[in-house]
């Protein structure tokens, strides 16, 4: 399997021109292998490994707790639309399904950039910015989970705040990969006709363009695996309560108490108070 594609430029210098098409299939297979492996591993666990819901409920805890505000959900789904459009327009032609993809691709890229910019501003000024950072409690909990995985008796760690550690890690990987795709994608927009500037393929050297194409390609194929994993977790029955919260915004009291520590996260209502009684 080849990793890169190379060609001789007009000066007969060997330059990178992009990643190998094989990597698309490798990413697809990696995603499927991960999903299958995880599903089998979870199935093999004899007993549920989660926290009980025996924690005392805070007084006044409503039946439904707000997890994602409307604006957060709107961001998520707009980003999902743009991401799907980007992946389809990027990889379907590689798979032999030909259609005029370039304009749709860069328009979807612009939508992705707008949603990312919105998300950065929104999460910085209107949400708890630090809720996505990995804290000391997360590390402690992770250590204990790893030890438990290898059969060592460990007391349970603290329940998660708004986001468990695996969500945070996934988020940060997506951030890195998406930023790589966006940064290189913006540069690549100089090579096609867009609304923003006259195309000019000579703003970078051939060798530098090769790097841009490779980074864009690698981030693209990484997103194939990451999106497969994301969809897999979204449709798993034991995660359905999280998925539903991305539709209607709420988690119910039972799931909240089972998976979250009320002292660490009290819902996304005004001023962090437990919101709306239903």
């Amino acid at each position, binding site marked *: 399997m080849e990793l890169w594609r190379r*060609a001789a430029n007009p000066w007969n210098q060997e330059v990178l*021109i*992009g990643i190998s098409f094989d990597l698309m299939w490798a990413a697809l297979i990696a995603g499927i292998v991960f999903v299958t492996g995880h599903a089998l591993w979870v199935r093999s666990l004899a007993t549920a490994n989660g926290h009980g819901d025996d924690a005392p409920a805070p007084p006044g805890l409503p039946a439904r707790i707000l997890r994602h505000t409307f604006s957060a959900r709107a961001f998520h789904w707009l980003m999902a639309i743009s991401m799907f459009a980007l992946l389809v327009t990027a990889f379907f032609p590689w798979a032999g399904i*030909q259609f*005029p993809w370039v304009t749709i691709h860069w328009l979807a890229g612009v939508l992705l950039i707008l949603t990312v910019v919105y998300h950065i501003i929104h999460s910085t000024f209107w949400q708890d910015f630090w809720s996505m950072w990995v804290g000391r409690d997360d590390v402690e909990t992770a250590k204990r989970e790893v030890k438990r995985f290898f059969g060592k008796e460990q007391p349970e760690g603290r329940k998660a705040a708004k986001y468990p550690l695996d969500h945070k890690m996934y988020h940060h990987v997506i951030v890195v990969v998406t930023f790589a795709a966006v940064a290189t994608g913006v540069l690549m927009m100089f090579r*096609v006709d867009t609304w923003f500037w006259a195309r*000019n*393929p000579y703003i970078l050297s051939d060798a530098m363009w090769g790097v841009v*194409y490779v980074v864009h390609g690698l981030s693209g194929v990484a997103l194939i695996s990451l999106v497969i994993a994301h969809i897999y977790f979204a449709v798993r029955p034991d995660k359905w309560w999280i998925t539903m919260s991305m539709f209607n915004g709420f988690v119910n009291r039972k799931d909240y108490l089972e998976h979250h520590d009320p002292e660490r996260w009290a819902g996304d209502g005004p001023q962090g108070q437990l919101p709306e009684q239903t």
Partner: protein
Amino acid sequence: MAVIRDMIPPCELFQPASIGDALNLLDQYGENSWVLAGGLDSFDWFKDRIKRPEAIVDLGGIEELSGIRADGDGLVIGPMTSLTEVATHPDIVGRFGLLAQAAEHVATPQIRNQGTLGGNLAQDTRCWYYRGGWPCYRAGGNICYASAPKAMNAEHCVFGASRCVAINPSDTAPATIALDAQMVVTNSSGETVYDAEDFFIGPGIDIERMTVMEPGDLLTAIRIPGTWAGADFYFEKIRDRQSWDFSLVTVASAMRTSGGTIQDARISVNGVAPYPMRLDEAERAVIGQAPTDDIGVAAGDIAIRRAQPLRHNAYKLPLMKNLVRRAVRAEV
């Protein structure tokens, strides 16, 4: 980069005697095969060492791919039929003169004797950057040298660019669109029939191909329906020199008039886009109208409305506009 040599690199040459044998070979070698029709373009590619197929499948020995025969009120033309035969065949000259004129405008008599209709329709672009062996989009790379700020792009496209700005160079292609021709493409899975308009594709769909044909596909027939038999035709090819050159802009039209009014029309151009373009809007503008100069001018204006010229090819706009105008005015 192209390295021009006198010899073709070693490869296998197959000369099948039937379509089935040819398809088997194309299946066997896949992307490493090369379909050889008249060979006029192929040998340049091979000698320049830009295309290096493992196997060349020469169609010259397949009789069923040659010749012209009646099919109801239309014709079926084998893709290996020489351009000279297309230009001189009585049925084509008498009923589908547009195609005969187009074939007659290809290159030189010697080339028309050797060149085939299928080869002319399916030929690759003449973009000199691409032909020079540079790693452009069309060659599998990630750049279009012809659309760069200082590129020499006088002969490139004013419509339909999508990263690549090369044009389709075929003289006969616009005539097949104007005649509502159909292309029969066969591979090991069976036969698919494409309208001529859909047979040619742009870089937005596949930047490395000019037609729908993929490795393993063979153009096995060109069907000309009787729809436009005996209609009024107009063909004009503008080139840098009249003796022998590729087209800068070509127009091919078929029209039917009655009572001084255009009843139906097909207008197609080539040399302005990566594919031969049918001018639907211009057709709609002239149908139901008298073929006056004013209508011709209006159709020409409509035809170039969405053009996006490059640095050196804005001259194609008045050229195309006037060719459309002449095609309409020729009805007078």
